[in-house]
């Protein structure tokens, strides 16, 4: 069976590349520290030696819109173009072409349907920065085949936090049962507290530093019970109108399996708290 060699859950700050590659005299003061932290985090994936990446993100109205918005969607294409015109314009992110892994995409879609997740699917999916930012930070060579999975953290009504957890658990089961000798890493990106297009945006910190501190503790200790007890759509909205991206962290905890994280780091930046987690799932008992 395939081996789940690493699970990564990370924030996706679209300005990382620009902030750390502009001329040093124009960089923000935290840029060198940010770069060091990202390179250390990248090593947590590199050393797991993955062959295939299952990438979890959320389309920000780039390919999918409100005429036809899926709650959960999986890509099953041979290849994925990435980065839209308006992301290049705003964030200066380069374009990419990522290889797909059609066999695992198909196995994942069927496996999730067998587990009561009737996913939408796409044979022509262009990837946005929710997946490309973690590629830039954790695998900038962009040389591994991917299986992209999108969640709705964006267009209400949203699935519940519990449903994100359950989808993560189902993805884990499907990866564990995949008949292959490949090493699979799952990488998901989301947010801690975040405000976009509202009165609390672009401050010196994220909109709710107390939530950020609590969320990092919950994730790093694998405390899914506390999350499902305390985190609701309404509580997330109180922490910032775009905080619902936290549910992709909950999904990644489902893949990792309510375990203490093996690697935890964070960085307090203007506008957001960045956070980086890695789990190395234990070998299953024979």
């Amino acid at each position, binding site marked *: 069976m395939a081996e789940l060699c690493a699970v990564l859950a990370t924030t996706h700050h679209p300005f990382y590349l620009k902030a750390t590659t502009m001329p040093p005299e124009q960089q923000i003061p935290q840029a060198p520290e940010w770069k060091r932290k990202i390179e250390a985090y990248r090593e947590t994936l590199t050393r797991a030696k993955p062959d295939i990446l299952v990438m979890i993100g959320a389309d920000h109205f780039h390919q999918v*819109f409100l005429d036809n918005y899926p709650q959960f969607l999986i890509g099953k294409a041979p290849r994925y173009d990435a980065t*839209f*015109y308006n992301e290049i314009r705003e964030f200066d992110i380069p374009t990419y072409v990522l290889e797909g892994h059609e066999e695992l995409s198909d196995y994942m879609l069927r496996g999730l349907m067998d587990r009561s997740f009737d996913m939408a699917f796409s044979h022509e999916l262009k990837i946005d920065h929710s997946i490309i930012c973690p590629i830039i930070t954790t695998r900038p060579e962009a040389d591994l085949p991917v299986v992209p999975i999108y969640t709705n953290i*964006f267009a209400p009504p949203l699935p519940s936090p519990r449903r994100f957890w359950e989808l993560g658990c189902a993805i884990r089961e499907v990866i564990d049962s995949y008949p292959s000798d490949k090493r699979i890493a799952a990488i998901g990106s989301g947010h801690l507290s975040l405000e*976009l*297009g*509202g009165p609390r945006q672009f401050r010196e910190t994220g909109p709710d530093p107390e939530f950020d501190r609590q969320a990092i503790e919950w994730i790093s200790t694998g405390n899914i019970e506390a999350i499902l007890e305390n985190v609701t759509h309404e509580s997330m909205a109180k922490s910032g109108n*775009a905080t619902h991206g936290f549910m992709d962290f909950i999904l990644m905890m489902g893949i990792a399996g309510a375990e203490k994280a093996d690697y935890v780091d964070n960085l307090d930046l203007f506008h957001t708290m960045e956070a980086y987690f890695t789990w190395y799932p234990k070998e299953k008992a024979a």
Partner: protein
Amino acid sequence: MSKYYVNKFLFTVDRDPELLRRYKEEPRAFVATWEQSIGPRLNDAERSTVHSLTDEERQALIDHDFVKLFEMGAHFFLSLTIFIALYDEEYMQREGPLAFQRHFAKELAHWEGKEYPSVAC
């Protein structure tokens, strides 16, 4: 009220550099064109008869009025992105990085601590 249609306006214009330029330069004429030939478009062959803008929505779009759009429940991501595209550069040149984003936040300061208008359509 059609939050969906306001969002469709923001979505279709933000993703197209030529439409964005026209919305910046001649908002009133462009919004009229959009309502006539872009908004109803489903694909190359099909037109929809379902949605239309209210007078208030039309005026908010013509005025680039992101406060009104927020209060009508236009999607925060679409609204922020398109107005950054329209105004970031001129604010940056005048007042430095993130000046427009901070101006945007300040104009909405009266909503802090309150429940925001829902973006659900």
